[in-house]
């Protein structure tokens, strides 16, 4: 079984975030590959909504993570913070608007738009479905790939966390083409790209409502992290298609040993939707998807 750590950060300043991140890595006994030369960090910068909405990774969180990595890697590694253009978002704007340009300057790291980088086509099958992705060279060549997702509720796939964040490593911009079979697409790209470490920015979490949890989670297993994130949002991980599918495909393990503060203590912050609400949302989404 995989280890998943849960640590509460006191304040969301770089110092306490650094302490919380370090503690979360200690709890999962993360073994730093100390000779890593090329470190790639993948936050979730899916749209122009800033960190306070819980939709995107806080640049302060990434900044604290960079400090932790620099403290533990022997050689001074090249650190890249990466994101790819999406159907409705462009990295050149999101890096600036969400404070990543400023953070990159302060930390002396490089921001990379994966959609503008050299990439190779890759095809993979999950179930009966084939998917094509463009895998950036920088991801393939990284010595240490750190996945820094958010925990979010999303209509359709229920939760998005570590597995879905890797979907953003696909250099192809028009990602809506995968929306029809999103769960399978998420699992497929995770078969091609394996992160070495997941550190979740759970400082602000967007479930059925947005809450400041001040939570840091870590694991080497993205499936275990997603299962833990499901618990936090009040979903049974077995009801989340991409998590069960990922476990079946051998990407990770849904069963995990938790270290640190139990997630059950925060589970009640995200009440399940009422049946009436679920029907309303289902009708609205079906209409927008198939009729409009």
């Amino acid at each position, binding site marked *: 079984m995989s280890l998943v750590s849960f640590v509460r950060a006191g304040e969301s300043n770089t110092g306490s975030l650094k302490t919380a991140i370090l503690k979360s890595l200690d709890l999962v006994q993360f073994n730093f590959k100390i000779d890593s030369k090329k470190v790639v960090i993948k936050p979730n910068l899916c*749209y*122009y*909504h*800033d960190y306070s*909405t819980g939709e995107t990774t806080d*640049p*302060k969180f990434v900044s604290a993570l960079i400090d932790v990595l620099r403290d533990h890697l022997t050689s001074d590694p090249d650190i890249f913070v990466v994101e790819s253009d*999406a*159907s*409705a*978002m*462009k990295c050149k*704007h999101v890096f*600036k*608007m*969400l*404070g990543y*340009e*400023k953070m990159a300057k302060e930390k002396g790291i490089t921001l990379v738009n994966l959609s503008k980088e050299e990439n190779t086509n890759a095809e993979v099958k999950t179930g009966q479905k084939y998917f094509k992705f463009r895998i950036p060279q920088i991801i393939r060549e990284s010595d240490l790939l750190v996945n820094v997702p958010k925990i979010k509720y999303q209509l359709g796939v229920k939760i998005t966390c570590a597995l879905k964040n890797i979907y953003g490593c696909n250099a192809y911009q028009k990602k*809506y083409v995968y929306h029809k079979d999103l769960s399978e697409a998420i699992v497929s790209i995770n078969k091609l790209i394996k992160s070495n470490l997941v550190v979740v920015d759970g400082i602000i979490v967007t479930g059925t409502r947005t809450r400041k949890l001040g939570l840091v989670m870590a694991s080497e297993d993205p499936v275990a992290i997603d299962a833990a994130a499901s618990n936090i949002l009040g979903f049974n991980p077995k009801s989340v298609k991409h998590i069960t599918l990922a476990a079946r495909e051998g990407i990770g393990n849904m069963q995990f040993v938790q270290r640190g503060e139990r997630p059950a203590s925060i589970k009640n912050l995200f009440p399940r939707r009422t049946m009436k609400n679920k029907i*309303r*949302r289902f*009708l*609205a989404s079906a*209409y*927008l*998807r198939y009729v*409009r």
Partner: protein
Amino acid sequence: MGKVHLHNCLRLKNAQLVSVADSSTKALRFAREAGVKNVQRDYNKLLNDESIDAVIISVPNFLHLECTKDAAEAGKDIFMEKPLARNVVEGEQILSHVKRAGVKLMVGYPSRFREAFTSLRDEIRSGSLGDIQFASATNISSGPFSPRGDMGRPAQVPAWWFKKELMGGGALLDLGVHAINLFRWYFGDVTGVKSYLGYRFNMDFEDHAVCFLKFKDGPIATVNVGWFSKDPRVSIELYGTVKHRSLVRSPPGALSMITEDIGRKFGKIGRSMERYYRELQYFVECVSSDTSPSPNGEEGLLDLKIISMGYKNAFNLTPNR
């Protein structure tokens, strides 16, 4: 906004939609599918059509001057989306082209055609609220950065929304202009303007602002605008010596949108579109009866002058991070 005007134009009883021009193939396809037979890539072809009396200009701010000049020179009456221009200098040039050509120019301020807001004006005028001492208008949303869709697919925010030189300003110009125009309509002339401009998103234009207006014979008003929130809200508050009034308007929910969409297929306007329909209907009435529309170009220019003072007398807040 072009799509909203197209939809409403097709339902106007006192005018006929003759032609649509757009440089985008997608927009022209949308117009064709909506039932417009004559679509053009080059708007000059539309302007050369003598059967056309008036045009609706719904283009990015940086194209307002060029399009208005061409339309005025072609002798067309003009309905122009707000703001009149990117700045006062361009606004004055627009007015000079319009005056020289002797055509009408109306600026699109849909709040002036929103029933709840027009009723407020009646209340102020009737004296039932007493003297208004404080007034406040709030318009908060994600603005241009709201998630967009195009034929059921997510779409990019158009590039001009990220460039100050193409927009002319930020949230104060884009959203503040509505409230400033409305308050001038309520209270008259502005004698003093001050503002705070905020840069949450580290861009070179303000994404939120608080603007203070002092009216000559009326209250002190605050205009709060922002592009920072996922929870859109428009509200007006008036504090009078006799009574207070507060109006809050949120956008329709998903189910209301569906009901409106279905209604639209059967020719209904829909509640959220009513004010846009009414302003067009009014514009067409002005064209047919040869009367001057209000809000006109002069009013649009006055609003720009106030915003320009707001920028000049601004305290710039530092970016959050």
